[in-house]
């Protein structure tokens, strides 16, 4: 037993276990979120949603996953085979790393690093590259248009996202998720959402755009681009993109709840329940937005970012810096 514990103390083994746990969480979460998304869509449109497979359609995502796994993998003619198959892998792989430095509980951290925020932002940026490769490698006009949109959108929205994260980093004086959480454990009012409400709003809007969720789902706009960058993907190629999209939702919501909503801090329940509750509340809000708002036009999307979010976040950042200096 002690030997086993010693083995566990080895950082490499610990990391491996954490990665496996995270991948399990991501897979389970994909199944749950598909179901929840379809149920939310159904209830908002006042229909039952998936209902036939299992009690209340609970087994529907499992059936869908089996179908996706069993499908033939098709590569379009004249497509770049290597890029075409690299793209879904590249889209999905960084997700595990993104969840590593996030504290799900007081002691439930995969990798406690000083620059956790930077790590997440850097690795989530890789997703754009994946979408770009998918669009280019598919040899399809819709996919290429989707990829072009994805790049323009992600590059634009990364700026306000980073600036709003910087505000939090300024106030808590750290880029370590654990320390940022620790600075918010003094009751509800110590949460950053109350000291930085504008930054939270900007972060959430940018996060919606970064994860390509409606109303900013232009890279895959079904009604204009058939399916955008993943038009040509079937089977698990599509499945990986799908899983990656839901996993990035988890990532941004986890980051948002750590940075702004106090992470695992909360009364009565253990930390990880509070963390999960906050993450899923934010995800439910994202789904609610998706089934409420129509998709924005591309010029509206970029105008919103360059004319509103970036100046607002800059002003917010400067005001934060000023106030911090005055208080000191």
């Amino acid at each position, binding site marked *: 037993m002690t030997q086993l514990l010693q083995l566990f103390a080895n950082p490499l083994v610990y990391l491996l276990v954490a990665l496996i746990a995270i991948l399990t969480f991501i897979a389970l979460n994909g199944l749950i979120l598909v179901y929840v998304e379809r149920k*939310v869509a159904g*209830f*908002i*449109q*006042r*229909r*039952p949603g998936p*209902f036939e497979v299992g009690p209340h359609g609970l087994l529907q995502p499992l059936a869908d996953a089996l179908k996706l796994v069993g499908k033939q993998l098709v590569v379009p003619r004249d497509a770049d085979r290597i890029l075409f198959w690299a793209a879904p892998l590249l889209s999905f792989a960084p997700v595990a790393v993104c969840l590593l430095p996030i504290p799900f509980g007081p002691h439930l951290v995969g990798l406690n690093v000083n620059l956790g925020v930077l790590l997440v932002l850097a690795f989530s940026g890789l997703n754009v590259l994946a979408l770009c490769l998918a669009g280019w490698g598919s040899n399809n006009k819709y996919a290429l248009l989707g990829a072009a949109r994805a790049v323009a959108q992600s590059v634009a929205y990364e700026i306000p996202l980073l600036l709003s994260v910087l505000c939090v980093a300024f106030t808590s004086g750290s880029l370590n998720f654990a320390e940022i959480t620790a600075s918010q454990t003094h009751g509800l009012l110590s949460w950053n959402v109350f000291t930085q409400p504008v930054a939270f709003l900007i972060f959430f809007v940018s996060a919606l755009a970064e994860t390509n969720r409606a109303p900013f789902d232009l890279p895959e706009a079904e009604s204009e681009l058939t399916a955008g960058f993943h038009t040509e993907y079937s089977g698990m190629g599509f499945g990986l993109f799908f899983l990656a999209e839901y996993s990035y939702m988890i990532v941004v919501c986890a980051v948002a709840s750590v940075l702004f909503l106090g992470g695992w801090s909360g009364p009565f329940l253990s930390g990880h329940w509070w963390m999960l509750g906050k993450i899923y509340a934010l995800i439910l809000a994202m789904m*609610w*937005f998706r*089934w*409420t*708002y129509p998709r924005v036009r591309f010029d509206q999307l970029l105008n919103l970012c360059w004319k*509103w979010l970036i100046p607002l976040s800059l002003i917010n950042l400067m005001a934060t810096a000023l106030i911090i200096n005055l208080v000191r």
Partner: protein
Amino acid sequence: MTTIQKTLKGLWSLIVGLKVTGKEFCKPWITVHYPRQEVTNLESYRGHIDLVPRPDEPKKPLCIVCKRCEEVCPSGCIRVEGHVPGEQTGEARQLLLISNVPLPNSAARDPICAADKTLRVLDGFTLNYNYCSLCGLCVQCCPVSSLTFSSDVYLAGGSRRDFEYDLLRRLKNRKIKV
């Protein structure tokens, strides 16, 4: 100033939108969960056409064999066959079939009277529902209102033949409501 006002108004409209969908989320379903529930307003369904029986003799149709429905049908999916009782043959029989036809709605007030006046007897009324486009022209042009839409919604079959209906037989086999 107006830009800020417009922006605030826009932001408020986003909240209003969320309120609308949030309210709908909490309301019960309005769709009918088909195999477990069924709709109750099937009478208003306009399915394939059906013959209308005479009020006094429910096994006989009001049809006067004018063949207008057959002519007007854009898909050519109606076939009406009739004969004139008696000994007329050849040209005289044809004439009898064409003449004596009232205008649409002229006999609508007393369809039984119209059916009695005309000498023709309906032998067969077949509908090929495979080609019917449900335009309803036959129902509109029937001078004696002998055609109506059935509320037959549960249609399924394994072959085309399943949708070639003998409407006269349908009428004769129909259960009479007491």
